[in-house]
C-alpha cells in the first residue's frame, strides 16, 4: 500500500503567497477580532486567580494562595477523578460504538436517511433537554425501573453514589454516539472502493480488510473525534448540572468551577480552578498531537 506511506514535504521559505498580501488582513479580520475578545477575557478572567473576589467589592491580591489551596482541596480531587473517569469511559465507548454503527450504516441502502436522522436526533437536542429526559428515565419510579420491574428483575438505584457516575456516562454515550457515527460514516465513504476490490482479489477476509484498509484510513477521523471528544468531555457540565448524583458523586471540574463562582461567589478561587483545567486540557491535547505520528495514518 504505497498510498499509506507518509511523504515528507519540503520546508518552504516563509513569505506571503503572491496576490494575497493585500487581502490577508481583511480575510483574517473576523477571526482576529474573535481572538482579541477571547484572549482579553481569558487573561482578565485568569488573572483573577491571584485574587480574592466576591463579585461585589474590589478584587484583593492574594498571590498564589488560591493555587496552593486547590492542591489541598478534597473536592477538587474528587472532581478531577470523576472527570477523568468520564473521559476514560465515554470517549472510547463513543468511538467503538460509533464506528460499529457507521460500518453498518455504510452497508445499508434502504432507510439509510431515516437511520441517520434517528441516530443524530439526540445531538439535535440541547444538553439540558437530554439531561431532563434522563432524570425521568433514571427516576426511582421512572421508565427504566418500571421496565426492570415488569421483567421481574427488581429495581436499580441509578442515581445513588455508587451508580450515579456510570448512569451519567451512559447518558453521555447515548447522546453523542450518533454524531460520532456520522463522522465515521463520512470517513468510510471517502475510502476509495478500489482498495477493497484489490484486497478481495488477494483473498483477504472481511476482518483483515478492516484492519488493513478501513482502520488505517479512518485514523485521521478517529484522531479528530478523539481530540475534540476529550476536550469536550474534560469540560462536562450541562449533563451533571441537571442530572446530579448525591455526595459529589457526579461533581466534575467544570461544575465545581461553576459552583464556586456562582453559588459560592468566589471568583478568584474559581479562576484558579479554571487555570488548572486549562493546564489539563493543554497537556491532554498536546500529548495527542505528539503521539498522533505513532498511530494516525494519512492518505498521502
Amino acid at each position, binding site marked *: 500500500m504505497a498510498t499509506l506511506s507518509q511523504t515528507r514535504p519540503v520546508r518552504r521559505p516563509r513569505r506571503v503567497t503572491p496576490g494575497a498580501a493585500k487581502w490577508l488582513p481583511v480575510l483574517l479580520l473576523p477571526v482576529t477580532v474573535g481572538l482579541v475578545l477571547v484572549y482579553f477575557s481569558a487573561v482578565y478572567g485568569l488573572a483573577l486567580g491571584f485574587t480574592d473576589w466576591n463579585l461585589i467589592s474590589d478584587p484583593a491580591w492574594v498571590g498564589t494562595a488560591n493555587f496552593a489551596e486547590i492542591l489541598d482541596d478534597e473536592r477538587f480531587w474528587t472532581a478531577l477523578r470523576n472527570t477523568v473517569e468520564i473521559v476514560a469511559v465515554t470517549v472510547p465507548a463513543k468511538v467503538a460504538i460509533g464506528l460499529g454503527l457507521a460500518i453498518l450504516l455504510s452497508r445499508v441502502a434502504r432507510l439509510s436517511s431515516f437511520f441517520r436522522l434517528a441516530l443524530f436526533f439526540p445531538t439535535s437536542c440541547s444538553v439540558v433537554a437530554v439531561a431532563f429526559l434522563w432524570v425521568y428515565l433514571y427516576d426511582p419510579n421512572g421508565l427504566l425501573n418500571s421496565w426492570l420491574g415488569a421483567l421481574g428483575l427488581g429495581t436499580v438505584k441509578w442515581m445513588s453514589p455508587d451508580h450515579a457516575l456510570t448512569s451519567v456516562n451512559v447518558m453521555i454515550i447515548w447522546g453523542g454516539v450518533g454524531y460520532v457515527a456520522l463522522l465515521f460514516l463520512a470517513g468510510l465513504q471517502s475510502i476509495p472502493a478500489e482498495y477493497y476490490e484489490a484486497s478481495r482479489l488477494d483473498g483477504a477476509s472481511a476482518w483483515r480488510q478492516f484492519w488493513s484498509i478501513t482502520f488505517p484510513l479512518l485514523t485521521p477521523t478517529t484522531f479528530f473525534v478523539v481530540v475534540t471528544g476529550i476536550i469536550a468531555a474534560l469540560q462536562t457540565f450541562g449533563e451533571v448540572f441537571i442530572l446530579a448524583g448525591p455526595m459529589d458523586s457526579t461533581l466534575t471540574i467544570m461544575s465545581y468551577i461553576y459552583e464556586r463562582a456562582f453559588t459560592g461567589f468566589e471568583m478568584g478561587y474559581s479562576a484558579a480552578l479554571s487555570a488548572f483545567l486549562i493546564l489539563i486540557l493543554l497537556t491532554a491535547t498536546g500529548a495527542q498531537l505528539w503521539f498522533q505520528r505513532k498511530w494516525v495514518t494519512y*492518505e498521502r
Partner: protein
Amino acid sequence: MSVELDRRPAAVTSVPPARRGRRTHGRARGWEYAVLVLAVVVILGPFVVAALTSLRTNADYLSSTSVLPTELTFSNYVRVFDEIPMARMILNGLFIAVLGTLGGLVASLVGAFCFAKLRFAGREPLFGVVLFTMLVPSTVTLIPLYTIIRAAGLVDTPWALILPLCTGSAFAVFFLRQHLMSVPHEFYEAAVLDGCSVPGTIFRVYLPLVRGPLAILAILNFLASWNDLLGPLIYLNTPEKMTPTVGLTYFRGQYTTDFPVMLAGSLVVLVPTTIIFLVFNRHIRDGLAISGSLK
C-alpha cells in the same frame, strides 16, 4: 505544527465521487439491519416516552406512577404557545441562529483558507493561538465578555449573540482547514491566472469543494446557537426577546416543574433543528471525512 503541506495532491478528491462507497451499498444482511433497528429503538425510545408524557395533564402525571397516560390531551402544546410568547421566541431564535451561523461560516471559511492555502509569516503560531481558544472554559470569559458587550451597548439586543458568532470558531477553522488542505494547490494557481481575486477564489472555487464540511458546520453551528442557554440568558433581559431554549425554562418553577409542558416544549423546539438537519443531510455524505493532515 511546522510542516507545510499546501502543495500536496489530494487522493480523495481525485477519486470520482460515483465510485466512492459503491462497494457496500445494499450488501447489508438481516442481522445488520437488526442491530441498527435496535440502536434506533434505544435512541428514539426515550423520545417516544417523552412524546407520550407530553400528552398527559400535569394532574394525571403527578398522581399516577404509570408510564402510560390515562387520557390524551394536546393542551400542553397549546400552553407552550399560550403561556409564553413561543412563536415570537422561535422567530428570535431563528434570527440569531441563521445570521450567527452564516456569519460564522463566512468568517471561519476565509480564516481557514488563510491557514490552509496562504503562506505568511507567523501562520503556524497564529493557528495554534486559534486552536487554544477551544481550551478556554466559558466560565472564565463570561464576566469580562459581558462587560465588553455591555460597553458596546449590545445588551438586550440579538446582536450581543450574533456578532460574537460572526468571528468564527476555532472548531470550524480547524475543521475546514483540514478539508481545504486536501484540495490541490493547482486550483488556486489556476484561479489566480484566470484573474480571479482572492475572495473570488475562495467563494467560487473553494466553497463548492468544501460544500459537505460547510453543511456539517451549518448544522452544528445552528444547533449550538439554537440550544445555547447561557448566552441568551445572560445577554438578553426582555422575555419577548428570548430564544425558545430560555423560554422552556419558564415552565420550571422554584419548587416544582410542570414536566408534561416542559416535554411538549422540548419537542416543539426540536422541529426547526430536525428541518435544518433534513435540509443539509443530503450534503453530509462527504462532509465529515477528515482526509487531511492534522499537523
